[in-house]
């Protein structure tokens, strides 16, 4: 039930932000069209945040996400440009992303080097591979149905309420929320993140859990990369630089703890939506960029501060009870 309370609090915070911008920008901010725009702009960070939630829950971090997204846009454009079927191009992109994630997991478990360092390295490696594959240029690809995945809906498409990409985001978020809550694997991920030694002693194959978690994070970065490609319609090896920080911020705003053991997919998703809302609101009210960046930064720090304060309060209550 405590997880539910957290999500409700986040939804309340988001509604507060919406209300404030509706008052500042005008009623157009709460229009369905603008909600659609915000959700479309959330999608890329959202997909990556699902994977990052698992990684952070397991007590690790993945800094290579932004580079992996860029690599996937390049792989998809590379394949399309050479006449591949769009489905095949997508499969190639997702495969590369899953391999990238697995490499992260394998390096972390085999080399026994912390995930921060390993993924700091692969951040550069994946980015370099993307630039090399693209010949240090962007790759123009022919327009296909892939570019419709996250495009604004035309009037005749309104029947499906949201673009396909946003539906996929909600579906995958629901799937992984269920995985974390109701499956053995989900409980093991949290157990590894809370106390790795205890998990090992009680028979959890810690290494296997870690590699799986990084592979899933890679795959989700692959889906995020597909969405990024859909929006750009070109393969861009320089895109999404620093995006991993937005993704981590979304997870942290959503209640994830960088010391592991805590985090929820729903929370991370709403964290991502809050950040996208602040960005869109700031943009639409003509807020100068520097003010907007300060606002986003302040919200991230405050979210973590509140999280700490809440944990301390809970610990105090537990002491009183015992």
């Amino acid at each position, binding site marked *: 039930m405590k997880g539910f*309370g*957290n999500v*409700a*609090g*986040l939804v*309340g*915070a988001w509604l*507060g*932000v919406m209300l*404030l*911008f509706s008052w*500042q920008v*005008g009623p*157009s901010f709460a*229009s369905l*069209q*603008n909600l659609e*725009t915000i959700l*479309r*702009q959330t999608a*890329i960070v959202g997909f990556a945040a699902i994977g990052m939630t698992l990684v952070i829950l397991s007590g690790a971090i993945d800094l290579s996400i932004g580079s992996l997204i860029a690599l996937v846009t390049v792989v998809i454009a590379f394949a399309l440009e050479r006449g591949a079927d769009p489905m095949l191009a997508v499969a190639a992109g997702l495969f590369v992303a899953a391999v990238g994630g697995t490499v992260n997991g394998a390096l972390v478990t085999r080399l026994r080097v912390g995930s921060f360092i390993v993924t700091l390295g692969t951040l550069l490696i994946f980015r370099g591979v993307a630039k090399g594959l693209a010949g*240090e*240029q*962007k790759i*123009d690809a022919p327009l296909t149905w892939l*570019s419709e995945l996250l*495009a*604004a809906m*035309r009037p005749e498409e309104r029947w499906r309420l949201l673009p396909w990409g946003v539906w996929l985001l909600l579906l995958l978020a629901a799937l992984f929320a269920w995985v974390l809550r109701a499956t053995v694997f989900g409980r093991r991920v949290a157990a590894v993140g809370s106390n790795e030694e205890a998990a090992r002693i009680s028979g959890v194959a810690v290494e296997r859990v870690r590699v799986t978690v990084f592979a899933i994070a890679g795959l989700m970065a692959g889906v995020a990369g597909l969405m*990024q490609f859909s*929006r*750009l*319609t*070109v393969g*861009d090896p320089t*895109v*999404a*630089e*620093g995006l991993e920080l937005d993704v981590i911020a979304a997870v942290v705003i959503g209640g994830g703890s960088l010391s592991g053991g805590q985090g929820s997919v729903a929370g991370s998703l709403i964290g991502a939506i809050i950040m996208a809302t*602040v*960005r*869109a*609101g*700031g*943009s*639409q*009210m*003509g*807020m*100068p*960029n520097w*003010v907007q*960046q*300060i*606002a986003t930064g*302040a*919200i991230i720090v*405050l979210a973590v501060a*509140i999280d700490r304060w*809440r944990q301390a309060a809970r610990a105090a209550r537990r002491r009183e009870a015992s």
Partner: protein
Amino acid sequence: MGMRRAWIVVLFVVVAALAGCQGEKESGVGDGEGKLRIAVIPKGTTHEFWKSVHAGARDAADELGVEVIWKGPLKEDDREEQIKVVEDFTTQRVDGIVLAPLDDMALRVPVQNAQRGGIPVLIFDSGLKDVDTVSFVATDNFAAGELAGEKMVELLGGQGRVILLRYQEGSASTHEREEGFLEALRAAPGIQVISQEQYAGATTESAQKAGENLIARFREGGAFGADGIFCPNESSTFGMLRALQDAGLAGEVRFVGFDASDKMVQALREGHLDALVVQNPRKMGYLAVKSIVAHIRGEGVEKRIDTGATLVTRENLSDPEIAALVAPVK
């Protein structure tokens, strides 16, 4: 429960404080009821060039009684960020969008979307492929590049080794300048282009690194193996200039740059730069806003509007017309 309330209160305070601080600054979107609202979206906001465009856009706004909303991508030179800005203004239903696209392909879909929603779009500075817009207001970049190339030939007396440091792949305007420059050099058989495959990248920082690498590559003992250098925009020119100054080579090679900033004009005076091709960004911003307003008001607008380029050297710097072109915008 207490937690939830704290969350909401804190967010309200932060956003309200920032909203308040914004209110005192330039007029936001909320005011100016009844006035036409024109969104002007540059590629970035820190280059001097864009400040001049902004000044020109404001001139037009004052003259025509419209409101100009100036908003660049939050992360400079990031295609995705610029797409978001175009989408935000589309959602908000401004009366017109004036855009300098960061990429000739990636911005097509959001621009088509805006136009489908009945918002006219005018492209300026840099082109967009395969999309019909109100007009394209820009320097004829190929001709401007030729101007630089002809000056280079003159400076070298038709003999020498030349380096072209390109700007960034996918930027149409600078690509045309580079091609115009190379075209003009072809007229002089005594000129040899020894490097044209290096890119300066988006920032002065990246350009300086590229410049340092080129210098290291062509330095043979004490001598420098190149006689002339051309860079096609402000950041690449300034980065290269910094690299040449650090290496003690400034003034030793003939150096033609593009666009102008205070420090670049200073370098021109000191002989560290031989010539600058300058555009007229203020005129560009002015004509872009003026043309889209004319279109919205039902007047005819030319499909292609050239805003011209001028060669600036140490000799003609004192000319008042030239001085106005390179003067910093307050």
